[in-house]
Each structure stands twice: as C-alpha cells, then as structure tokens.
C-alpha cells in the first residue's frame, strides 16, 4: 500500500519535472486588468520581431489581475521577468519589499518608464441626458456617479486624483473646498465596485448611474463592446496624466537568464511597432509620430496634470490619500 502510494507520488513528480520545456527563452509579464487585448497583440508582434532578429523563438506568458494584487503576487514570489502595472506605487512596493527591482527603476527607461499613457474621462448615456460637461457636474445632487473603490482598484485612484486635480484648479488650492467637492462626488456613488471592469459592468450592463469615470482606453472599449449608439465619451476640461509603468524585474530575469530578452521586450514597447499597437488599443503613445494618425486623432487634446507635479509623487500621494485614515477614508467617516 505504502509503496504504491510512493510510486504514485513519484510518478506525479516525474510528470511535473518532465513538462516539455519551450525551446527558446520564456518571459513572464505580470500586468494589470485592462491591458489584456493590447499585450496579446503586442506579444505576437514582439515574438515575430525577435525571431527575425535573433532566430530565437520567445514564449511570453501573461498574468492579468488588479494592479495591487499583481504587485503583492510578485512580492510573495510570482517570478515575473517584467511587470507592466497601473501604478508607480505598485512597482515601488515590489522594489521596497524584494529588492528585485532597483529603487531607481523609473530612470532605466525613457519617459519615466511609461511607454504609453492614458487619462481619465467620462462615459455618459446617449444624448447626455444629465448634461454632464465637466467635473463640477459630478458633485451635483441627482447625478449618480459610477466609479470603483480607490482602496481596491488602481484605476479608481486615478479617478479620484483627476477629480482632486480639477478641484485644485477650480478652488485655487483651497484644501477644505477641494475635499468638500471630492466628497460630494463620492456621495453620489451608489456603489463602489472593487475593480474598473466591475464599474463598467455596473454602468453599461446594469444601467446604474448617469456617468462612469474611467480610463480613456476602457471608455473606448465600452463603446466598442456595448454600442457606440448607447454611450458617449465626455472629456472634462482637465484630467490627470496616468503613466502606467513598465519595469524589468532584474532579480527574476537574471535568475532565469532572460535579461537580454526581457530588455528587448520592454524596448520594443517604445519602438514604432509598439507605439502603433498601443495607440490602436486606445493607449496614448509617448511618440505619437510613430502611430497611425487615424488612431492618434481619436485622443482629444486635454489639459493634463501629472502626479509628480501636483501631488509630489506617488509615495506621498498614497500616504496622504489612500492609506488607512487618509483623505479618502475621511470622506466616508460619518460626522459626529
């Protein structure tokens, strides 16, 4: 009996050990939720390009989930060779906890290690029945706002900061007024989904709310998915420049001996081909000249502020706004 059990175990182990290894190098890209379609197209292009240049066939494995969850998975040992996440803070956390990413990772690649950017816009129902034009309309009574929970969603933090950035300009930096405005927006939220995609479902499929605050690329995808005749995209007067960062996880790439491929992979994001694919998937390319002009024309010019300029970087922003007891928690603390 015992020997049979051991034989079974040994056979199972042997099976695991003998799983056929891919011939060429294998990369693991740990990414966030709304990049699925983009990286699918990008990986195919990169693999073809790399084969043409070096003759090696690369296999790229993808992992997608919420950005914060992905960062924790890497910290807990998921062996990502590259990370392509939604928030700089998430990569900072990996650097801090594991030292597998150098602390100055943002300077390793051009444009703060963000090969594509995005911003936060509104999606409203066809005809814009509530006449939503700008952030100020979101705090009005009788307007239901759909946005995910900034505590659990990276995208939601950008939404929150964009609202804050507008109010900062509107109220000339008066923090009490800014807070009151941001609070009035969240008072209008009937539900806080845990992720950006969840909010899209709530708004588009369950017909809840008058306005959805979301990523620009998610807004375009919503129109593609649910019908351009049912929804409209509204660009506010001012929004935030979201720079989803990419980084090499040195510790893991060196361990797997794939540093060269991983670096080529990230560089390819900045190449004309990479930029074109990004624009096609509704991410704003950092070099618009490389992308298809028709794709670039879809992005309306909009006044954009950065987290570095307005909020003094992500570490400070996270601590002030989103940590326990931070400004976002205060908004929800009932008055006593």
């Amino acid at each position, binding site marked *: 009996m015992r020997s049979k059990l051991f034989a079974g175990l040994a056979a199972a182990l042997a099976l695991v050990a003998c799983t056929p290894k891919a011939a060429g190098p294998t990369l693991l890209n740990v990414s966030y939720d709304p990049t699925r379609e983009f990286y699918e197209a990008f990986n195919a292009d990169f693999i073809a390009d790399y084969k043409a240049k070096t003759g090696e066939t690369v296999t790229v494995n993808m992992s997608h989930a919420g950005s914060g969850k992905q960062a924790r998975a890497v910290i807990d040992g998921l062996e990502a060779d590259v990370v392509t996440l939604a928030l700089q803070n998430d990569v900072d956390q990996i650097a801090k906890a594991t030292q597998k990413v150098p602390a100055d990772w943002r300077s390793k690649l051009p444009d703060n290690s963000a090969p594509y950017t995005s911003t936060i816009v509104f999606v409203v129902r066809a005809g814009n029945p509530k006449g939503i034009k700008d952030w100020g309309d979101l705090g009005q009574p009788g307007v239901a706002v759909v946005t995910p929970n900034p505590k659990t969603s990276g995208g939601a933090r950008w939404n929150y900061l964009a609202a804050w950035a507008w109010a900062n300009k509107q109220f000339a930096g008066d923090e009490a007024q800014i807070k009151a405005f941001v609070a009035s927006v969240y008072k209008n939220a009937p*539900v806080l989904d845990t992720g950006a995609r969840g909010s899209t479902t709530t708004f588009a499929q369950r017909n*809840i709310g008058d306005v959805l605050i979301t990523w620009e690329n998610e807004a375009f995808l919503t129109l593609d998915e649910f019908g351009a005749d049912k929804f409209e995209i509204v660009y506010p007067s001012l929004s935030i420049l979201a720079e989803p960062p990419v980084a090499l996880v040195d510790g893991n790439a060196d361990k797997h001996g794939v540093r060269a491929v991983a670096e080529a992979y990230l560089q390819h994001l900045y190449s004309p081909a990479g930029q074109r694919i990004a624009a096609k998937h509704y991410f704003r390319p950092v070099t618009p000249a490389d992308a298809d002009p028709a794709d670039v024309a879809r992005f309306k010019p909009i006044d954009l502020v950065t987290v570095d300029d307005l909020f003094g970087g992500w570490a400070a922003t996270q601590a002030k706004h989103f940590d326990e007891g931070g400004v976002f928690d205060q908004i*929800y603390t009932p008055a006593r």
Partner: protein
Amino acid sequence: MLPGFGLGLGYTVAYLSLVVLIPLAGLAFKSATLGWSEFYAIATNARVVKALQLSFGTALVAAVVNTIFGVLVAWCLVRYKFPGRRWLDAAVDLPFALPTAVAGIALATLYAPEGPFGAILEGIFGIKVGFTPLGVTIALIFVGLPFVVRTVQPVLEEIDRETEEVAATLGAGRLRTVVRVILPGLLPAILTGFALSFARGVGEYGSVIFIAGNLPYISEIAPLLIVIRLEENNYAGATAIAAIMLMISFASLFVINLLQSWSRKWFGNV
C-alpha cells in the same frame, strides 16, 4: 485505552495541524506583531465595528431564514413523492457547486435597481435590494441553503414513521407530534445546519462583493475590509480583523455546540 487510539489521535492532530492549525497560527503570529493597544484600536475602530456588525448580522439573519425554509425543503423532499423530486433534490446542491463569483454576478444582475427582480421590488414595494445590506443577506441565503437541507435531510429520513403513528394512537395531535416527537430528534441536525450556514455567511466574499455596494459604514462587509487593508500593504491590520472575526466565529460556534449538547441531554436522544 482502545486499540489504535495512539495512532488515531496522532493522525488527527497531525492532519488538523497541517490543514487548519498551522495556517491559523500564521494568522495569530502576524497579528501578534501588533501591540495590544493597536489591536484594541483596530477592534474598536468605528468602520471595523460597522463592517463586523454587517457581516455577522446578515449572516445571522440568513442562517435563521435558511434554517426555517431549509427544514421545510428537507421535509418536502423526504416526505413527499412527486415528479421531478430528484431534480429538485440535486438543485439544492447547486450553490455549493457554482463558483461564488458567478452566483454573485447573477444575483447582482437580478436584484440591481434595473434588474428583473430589483425593478419589481423597488417599483412596487419600494424595497431596495441590490447594493444594500438586504442584498448581502440574499446572497448569504443563497450560499447557505444547502448546509441546512443537507444536514437535516438524512436525519429526517432516519426518523421512524412508526413513532409518529404511535404518538397519534396515544392521542397526540399533529402539532404535538411534530413539536414533541419529531423536532427533538431533528434539533441537533438543525443546529448544525444553522451553524454551518452562519459560519459560511460570515466569511463569504465572492458572491457578496458584487451585490453589496461596498460603501464604507453602510454595505462594506468585513472580508472586504480585510482585502482593503491588504491593498494598503497593511498585513498586520488585515490579520487583526481576520483574528477578530475568527474569535467571534469561534465563540458563536462554541455556543451553538453547547446548545447542541444541551438539546441532546434535554430530549435524551440522538
């Protein structure tokens, strides 16, 4: 000592340690990195208290509803023969088999203000279900139902119908037979079903998160607060809330166990 006692005990302790106690010790260890004052501050934080009240309150209501209606369902399935009974019997297990997220999305779609049920409930009765604590309760009723039915059903099947006939021939009315003859035998099983349904409801995340609304102080369940603490990279804070939940759950289950042994003694059977 019975033969095999040492082996049996060793096996039980080793297995329980591996599967249950070691992970729980990890939890206790992590939350112990907080001092008592910090732990106390987390436990009495208004938002944590609200979330715990919501989780335990809705789980309790759901368990009570499941106990009443689950026993009725079990009774019908055992005592009546009707076409399609086997299908219904199998359907009871579906909440077990369905991934909880799928159940959550289905319930949220049905009970959302514009959903087929939600529109009727809100339009005609003025009751909001989706994205309120009531929605949480409904999700917990859904996931908890099989626990009551499946614990009560086999016991009900075992009850000898002759005892009931004897009770009837001795002059007991139907109500008296049910209350004095059948119910005592069923009570321990009912309590077990209640406890399982309650315990499942307290920790449920997947099916609740879509219908809850997740507004702090209103419809934010304690497991979500744990996830939020994790997102803040506040592992100690997360484990502290988990430890508090565990203590309350353990205390409740302990009380239910006491009730069970008391009911056994009182009615002197099963």
